[in-house]
């Protein structure tokens, strides 16, 4: 299943890639594939902005605006003016996240 088109904030600079393959290893959505000695983006619409790739790229080739794709978290963020965060573990009645 794919979510909305052209939404992901992921930016990838192939010229910085050293070909370690960590992004392919951590991405749970199959956004990256190895193309020869470098990683390439297979389908950006699959990206859910979890940030695992950027966190594990030792060469700063990947940047993404990390966030939770969770409506109640985003609404809470809008209401409190803060960044959207999951309510998990904070409020026992909480949202459906996690």
């Amino acid at each position: 299943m794919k979510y909305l088109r052209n939404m992901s904030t992921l930016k990838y600079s192939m010229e910085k890639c050293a070909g370690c393959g960590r992004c392919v290893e951590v991405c749970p959505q199959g956004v990256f594939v190895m193309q020869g000695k470098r990683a390439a983006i297979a389908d950006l619409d699959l990206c859910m902005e979890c940030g695992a790739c950027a966190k594990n790229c030792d060469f700063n080739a990947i940047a993404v605006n990390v966030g939770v794709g969770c409506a109640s978290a985003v609404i809470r963020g809008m209401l409190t003016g803060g960044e959207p965060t999951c309510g998990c573990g904070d409020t026992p009645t909480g949202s459906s996240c996690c």
Partner: protein
Amino acid sequence: MQKLTFIPTTVIKKKPLPAWASGTISTPAGVVLKVRTDLSRADIWGMVKSRASAFRMHYIVPPGLYAVGKPAKESDVFVTANYKMSFDALRRELKGINAWVLVLDTKGINVWCAAGKGTFGTDELVKRITEANLKAVVSHHRIILPQLGGVGVSAGTIQKKTGFRVSFGPVRAKDISAYINSGYKKTTEMSLTKFSVWDRLVLTPMEINPVMKKYPWFAAAVLFIFGLQPSGILFQQAWSGGLPFLVLGLLTVFSGAFLTPVLLPFVPFRSFAIKGWLVGLASIFLAAQFFSLMNMQHKLLLVTSFILFPALSSYIALQFTGATTFTGMSGVKRELKIGIPLYLGALGISLVLIVLFKIREWGVV
């Protein structure tokens, strides 16, 4: 009266083992619990309760090092969260395997969400590796993390700070033995999240639950509106007039929190708001056709139903983005930016129509 006598006894109580532990073993880093690989009835009941309620908020195991089978210095180290369901999902897949399990303190949250929050994170892993004296326990430098932990853990930093090289294993614990047998290689299948009908189905109780907590407010408002008469609040009127709305309300919860999640890939459009709206609309339409619930005296109420309930279903369905494996924040923000004004509009129009209905009913105009 009989005199009660107390015999003083000194009860020497050893700390009882948790039901999921079968004993202890000594390691260079101290005594650690040996973990069972079979789930007991209590474990399964705990899983059911966690799926359905806030019980899961306190379903934890103590963080630290554990043993599975008869692990030696060469045995693998698997890392997991201290949410009991995550811990159970791992240990049941380690049957017949000798391994170490390192549990991080994620405050009782599963691996993926905890990684997103940073509790299943680089610092916590460094701390646990150090505290468990993992260097003395194993002779190698490999640790295996669940792939979804990658959101919180930087493998490069772990290697720099502890010397251990992180391998991100499969997403699902059930692929662990296949992963080991293939020489620690993942197939594409093992590294992608799936979101099957079953996966979605088990998540629906926690969609329905929070909405149903708000349902009494909706019911009270409906009964008040229909019961309100110039002569006061009439129970008979409240019940006969309000009942179709109460039923449609329940149907809407069912549409948004159950049907839409379960039928997710089969409902057209990628937007959750549109999916929820369509399913809500179809439900109201079918209810109107087959159950003649719309035997409402007034066309105004029929129109109100078609404006209000699909919008509510859409809003409820949008909440399911929090439980999915594939929705990103930018997309959800876009949906809400467009959706919220529409929801408020639908609510406003519905209220106006209800007021019009009441005015006609009372024969004011």
